[in-house]
């Protein structure tokens, strides 16, 4: 504990109060400057170019010929319909931050959707095939359940800078087989939109 020296009164009281006022004003102004409970109300013209993040969230891809875009949901970056001999297949692109919950967890979730039992991660990895795309090497897997009619899932897992990208094609096995190459073309074409940083502050 530092020893406090004996004080002596200030030369003038006005100097004291001016100092105290200045210090108080500074200390009270600081915390209030950035009001983290601020509420703002404003209007913008319908044509205003607000900065909306693009629906692709920094990713680009080439939709295969013959496929069509369909309405998605809050989770999907994109949804497509892939025509085939046994009806349409539903194709989705989803990106999740970080590891997206893990490879095994997501593959087993897909397996669960066609009523297949979960597998250990090593077994899943052995079943997955590798392909080269614009985002680098990615893995994909074919999931089929003969006991569930012809429903099947083709799924691909790609690594991007801002998380893991999951591409899933779901439909009848016959349609999936007919669209397998298109599915892989889509996965290979997925790329990060090019950015570059300057050294400016």
């Amino acid at each position, binding site marked *: 504990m530092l020893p406090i020296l004996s004080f002596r009164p200030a030369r003038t009281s006005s100097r004291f109060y001016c100092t105290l006022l200045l210090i108080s004003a500074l200390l009270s102004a600081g915390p209030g400057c950035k009001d983290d409970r601020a509420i703002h109300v404003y209007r913008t013209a*319908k044509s205003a170019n607000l*900065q909306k993040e693009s629906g692709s969230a920094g990713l680009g891809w080439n939709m295969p010929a013959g496929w069509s875009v369909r309405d998605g949901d809050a989770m999907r970056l994109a949804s497509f319909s892939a025509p085939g001999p046994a009806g349409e297949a539903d194709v989705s692109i989803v990106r999740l931050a970080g590891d997206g919950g893990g490879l095994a967890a997501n593959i087993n979730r897909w397996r669960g959707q066609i009523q297949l039992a979960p597998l250990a991660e090593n077994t899943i990895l052995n079943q997955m095939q590798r392909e080269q795309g614009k985002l680098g090497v990615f893995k994909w897997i074919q999931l089929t359940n003969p006991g569930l009619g012809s429903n099947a899932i083709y799924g691909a897992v790609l690594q991007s800078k801002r998380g893991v990208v999951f591409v899933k094609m779901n439909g009848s096995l016959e349609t999936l087989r007919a669209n397998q190459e298109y599915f892989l073309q889509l996965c290979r074409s997925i790329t990060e939109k090019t*950015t570059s940083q300057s050294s400016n502050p």
Partner: protein
Amino acid sequence: MPPLVWKILKWSSDTRVFFFALIWLSFLVIAGTLAQADLGLYQAQQKYFSAWILWIWYIPLPGGSPVLTIVFVGLLVKLIFFTNWKPRFYGTIVVHFGALLLLFGSFLTAAFSSEGAMVIPEGGRTAFVRDYHAIELAITNRANPEFDETVTFAAGWLKYGEVIHHEQLPFDLEIIQYCANCRLERRSGPPPSSEWKGMARNFNLTEIPLHKDDSNNMAGLVFRIKTKANANNNQLDGIYAIFENMNIPQAFKLAGGDYLLEIRHELRQLPFEIELIDFVKEDHPGTQMARSYSSEVNLIDSDVHQRVLISMNHPLRHKGYTLYQSSFIQAGMGETTVLAVVENVGRLFPYISSLIMCIGLLLHLLIKMPVLFHNRSNAGGEQ
């Protein structure tokens, strides 16, 4: 004169307090710099330098803010009350004044500055800047054909139990969960009750540790909507979830309004607009690596248009804002410029205070020179 206040002020001006404050500040700089490798720049700044309390394990220690405050107050008190205002001390007085100005400028920067990004595609224009770090909840009513009306709530509202209420909204929001970085997990079973609606029916938001790159953090919010009695429609009441950059944001119609709910980085409106006319990128010969890039923009301020070129190391300064060429986006058709927009009230203080301190040192040297020469000539005479 309150004796206790005098004791505290006198204590803060003690040279020993300043000495130990400097040692602690040095520790903070070293610790914060080392922590930056794991936490990232922004989180290390917040934890070590901006915080009032630094928690190491469960021990509260002073952060950068209180220490710098004590240094400032001590220097101010010493300068006003305990300084000998004789001409031979004018040099040191000026240096101290310069140091005070430097500390004051850093306070202004910490309290008032903001920075963010402005993204403009070629041919587009905007007056909005997206903050790099601050998060807000934005509720936009799109019902009017000519304009959108947005109500935003800063991050201080996004805490468990907070009830968001505004006279322009026909509903209240009760915050159930907020996470600065979250992961979406599909529910393995049904939701806890029928109250869970929309995406929250099928997905959980799980909080995960903050990523050291703040841009990789995805904020998420779970909230309960309760429509007000005068809305005459409680079918929307329930628990919903939203997260940053949802491709299809949560929206619903109520009481004649068409409401869009988003959790996003704060959008601030500048007092002027920027229109991107052309973005030019030069590559190093034979490579696709950018050598330089620049944005030719139209600065639109109150119907006055002014063409400006913003390039690397040549920012645009206007109305207290500085716009730097930060990066760009190339995708498909057209290019998009990304400008870093900084508002820093205290940006000139380091320059002014450094100049004043230099002047103070020179003044001190000039004042001391006759004494030095006199001493030297005396020493030569004795020999």
